[in-house]
């Protein structure tokens, strides 16, 4: 049978960031997909040669706009491990709250883009309308909607008053209740089900073989979540990762929808358990230069992110590496795309929650 090669990308209405997949087609079925990335490679890791470790946090949080906070947090936490700095308790709790809000805003963004990918633009607008309220909370507490610049080595730069925290919890719960209707639409609407159910099935064994992380793995039944290691006060919260067993695109949507309400609950638990603001410091002074190396793992909205930092006692780091979850999920995406119909390719690409800016740094 004759084969045609259709290049998809780098610009495509469905892709949030540029990615090229050369799709080899037989009739309407995709038999092979060859990826090319590099359209947004900025070489940010080479900036360690120029920018000193104190300011490098600002570069790290600009790797990506969606996962920005957790990049900054990962850098700060890894440097604190190297320099043996003990961060005040309140600072760690504040970071957890901002991280969970980051997860909410990222999943809402993805749900909107996913709905746009299969043509449901009205639902896209509803998800982003809900997301605006989360961004307003970010702007009120950190000063920025997308890039917060609120992490520093030794703690955080802004505090949130206790009354403000209570108001945030109330607002998020109200938002969660309002979002429940949209969530129900994602889970039960017949046109969405028709488009996503049974598409791009990743079985549990396959998910393990391609080393998938995050909601990709959880939707195939693997109980994989870096928050279960209990670092950064996650061991003081009660939660169980959301799992689905079907492994198709609809299961991944359902996992992310449920993680939104789970994050709202985690924030409520955190606000109850954190120390009160009176007299609680939010940062410690850090002196000297870092020496040593470390790995640090966090759970970003898209999965497990690994930071590697190597420092040699000067003001510049020797190596900084961020292995983002999309980097780990691209082999899964390529595996899923082979054998599917051409019309399902945008859905499958969106379903790994691609953040190519993070992948290419």
């Amino acid at each position, binding site marked *: 049978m004759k084969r045609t090669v259709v290049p998809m990308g780098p610009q495509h209405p469905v892709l949030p960031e540029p990615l090229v997949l050369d799709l080899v087609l037989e009739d309407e079925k995709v038999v092979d997909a060859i990826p090319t990335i590099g359209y947004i490679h900025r070489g940010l890791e080479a900036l360690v040669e120029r920018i000193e470790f104190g300011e490098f946090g600002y570069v790290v949080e600009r790797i990506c706009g969606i996962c920005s906070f957790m990049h900054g947090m990962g850098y700060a936490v890894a440097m604190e491990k190297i320099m043996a700095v003990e961060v005040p308790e309140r600072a760690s709790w504040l970071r957890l709250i901002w991280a969970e809000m980051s997860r909410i805003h990222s999943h809402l963004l993805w749900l909107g883009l996913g709905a746009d990918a299969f043509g449901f633009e009205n639902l896209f607008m509803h998800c982003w309308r809900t997301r605006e309220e989360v961004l307003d909370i970010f702007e009120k507490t950190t000063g920025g909607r997308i890039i917060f610049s609120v992490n520093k080595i030794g703690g955080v730069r802004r505090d949130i008053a206790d009354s403000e925290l209570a108001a945030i919890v109330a607002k998020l719960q109200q938002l969660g209740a309002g979002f429940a209707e949209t969530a129900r639409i994602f889970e039960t609407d017949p046109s969405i089900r028709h488009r996503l159910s049974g598409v791009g099935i990743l079985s549990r064994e396959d998910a393990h073989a*391609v080393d998938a992380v995050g909601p990709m793995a959880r939707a195939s039944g693997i109980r994989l979540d870096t928050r279960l290691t209990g670092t950064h006060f996650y061991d003081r919260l009660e939660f169980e990762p959301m799992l689905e067993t079907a492994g198709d695109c609809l299961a991944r949507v359902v996992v992310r929808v449920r993680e939104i309400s789970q994050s709202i609950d985690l924030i409520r638990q955190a606000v109850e358990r954190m120390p009160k603001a009176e007299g609680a410091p939010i940062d410690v002074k850090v002196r000297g230069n870092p020496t040593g190396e470390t790995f640090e793992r966090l759970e970003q909205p898209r999965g497990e992110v690994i930071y590697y930092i190597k420092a040699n006692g000067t003001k510049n780091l020797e190596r900084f590496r961020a*292995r983002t979850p999309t980097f780990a999920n691209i082999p899964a995406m390529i595996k899923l795309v082979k054998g599917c119909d051409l019309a399902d390719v945008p859905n499958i690409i969106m379903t790994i929650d691609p953040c190519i800016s993070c992948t290419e740094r």
Partner: protein
Amino acid sequence: MDSQAFLDRVGAYHRDGWRLAIINTTSILPTEGMEHGAFDISWSFAQDDGRFEHLRERVLPGEEVPSISAFFGAAFLYENEMRELFGVNVTGIALDLKGQLYKTATIVPFSPSAIRARLDAIGRDSVGKKA
């Protein structure tokens, strides 16, 4: 590096159900005794219960590094990146993109010699540097 012993250990991780987490490369700048620098490569594996272990090798430029994509299919992405950005000589990658993965203006921008050239150009020790 001892390729066979290394692959045996990787095979053991694969058999015991570990997951490949990251393959990281760090360039070591040229010094006396290592005129072309070296690469510190670490392969990290994770288990679902939170264990996180690493294999580390120091490799000279040009030395052959075997691919682990026979055991861990997802390794092809890391190994293509290692070859294109650093210049590590990885052989036998399952999905070999032949230098077409990234499109950078400088070839192997993170190799020891490229980093040394950039540092020499800016005079690394200056503080309050002008643009």
